[in-house]
């Protein structure tokens, strides 16, 4: 059951991420990315990372992608006039390099012995408690650092997007 969910989610993720990069309509791109995120969230859920799955949906689908849609509709971006960069040689070389790297990675992965994670009893409360505790103890510095980063991004976005008084 878990295996089938993973396989279906994996296929869905790959197919819709291809749609994300290949379709000319920006709204279609955003929506297929939402489906990719949903599939990834399903994968997180079946391997027992329930809190992660919820956060993935709430932050990515609920906030980040809606922001993308908002900008697309605000700027009224219609379908792009042309697909591709107009430089076929460079494009082919880039894609070939990317695929080569991917093949290399998969070959390296194939050499690894597959390991299986496990869910122990007594973790019925889900992973949220352990994650919260860890954020407040061992990973306190990165946690605080992320909040500073988000504040900086907030101010930066405001400064960039506001209209200049002329």
């Amino acid at each position: 059951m878990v295996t089938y969910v993973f396989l279906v989610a994996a296929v869905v993720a790959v197919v819709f991420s291809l749609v994300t990069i290949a379709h000319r309509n920006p709204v279609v791109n955003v929506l297929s990315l939402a489906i990719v995120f949903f599939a990834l969230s399903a994968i997180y859920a079946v391997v027992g990372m329930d809190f992660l799955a919820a956060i993935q949906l709430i932050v990515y689908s609920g906030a980040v992608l809606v922001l993308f849609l908002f900008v697309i509709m605000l700027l009224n971006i219609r379908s792009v006039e042309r697909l591709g960069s107009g430089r076929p040689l460079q494009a082919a070389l880039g894609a070939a390099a990317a695929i080569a790297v991917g093949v290399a990675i998969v070959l390296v992965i194939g050499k690894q012995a597959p390991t299986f994670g496990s869910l122990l009893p007594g973790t019925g409360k889900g992973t949220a408690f352990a994650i919260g505790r860890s954020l407040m103890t061992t990973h306190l510095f990165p946690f605080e650092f992320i909040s500073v980063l988000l504040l900086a991004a907030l101010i930066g976005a405001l400064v960039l997007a506001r209209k200049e008084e002329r």
Partner: protein
Amino acid sequence: MWAEIIVTLIKLAVVIGVLFTTVPIMVWVERRGSALIQDRLGPNRVGPWGLLQPVVDAVKLLTKENLIPEGVNKLFYLLAPAIALVVALSTFIVVPFGSDPGLKLFGHAVNGFIVAPGLNLGILYVFAIASFGVYSIVLAGWSSDNKYSLLGGVRSSAQMISYELAMTIAVVGVLMASSSFRLDTIVTDQAGTWFGFLPRWNVFPQLIGAITFVVAAFAETNRLPFDLPEAEAELVAGYHTEYSSMKFASFFMSEYMNMVTSSALIVILFFGGWTLPGVAAPTGWAGAIFSIVVFSLKVAFFLWFFVWVRWTLPRFRFDQLMGLGWKVMVPLSVLNFVWVGVAMALRIL
């Protein structure tokens, strides 16, 4: 195994049935309620007190021509109302609607009056699924190829993100007090009284959080005074201008179902769910039915509150809406969150 499936199916059927029957009842309440508030009579021709009016409306909507305007993006145009309904129906499965003192049905434990009893995520699941609701409005607005619809969609995307923030932070206070995401745990945590007379409901220590949550719930369900995405005075009907017959009805029904879910969440998070201090609840099935009735009455009050507010307050302007969301609601919810933290550290909560 089979008993478990049957019990779950029965719960599902009950939840879906209740959600779908609440819609016509709420339509009637809304129309008669608005008439009451505006000193009119309201629908009173079909059936006693106009009670059958929603039935007639439903027949009208079902038999209307299924119109798809020219120039729409067909896939997304048809997808949008479906998303609205699916989201509205599937958020309710983690909402517990009655207390279960270990009852059995067909030799299998009822496992609480909640469709998905094993889900630890509780309120997070509701937020995760509800975050897809905004897509239906944005897609409807965008695919309709109509400037009013597009404006409605743009407005709703900004509005939903802004108020979701305040809503989530307001909930964090409750989650801290109960240290659980599970809605049934949150309810049982609120049983009993303070000082012997004040119910142990979260609304008393966290009044600011409760107010923020209720306001944000109004904004998330696109109800007046925050119904900017459809604002009929300026945008015709906003995002569903181009929708007719059952496609329009899907948006309409999902709005009322979201109201039911929001009211249920308000009751569970801040008003003690089915707990009623001072009344000795009966045991066994009678106790379960008693708790369900108490819960339904509380939810019904908040549904009426939604109607009451709608016909009392005027609509905000969009800049006022965003200003209220970011400059008032978010700071207030943070204040509530800080207060709960301090109170818990001082052991007075």
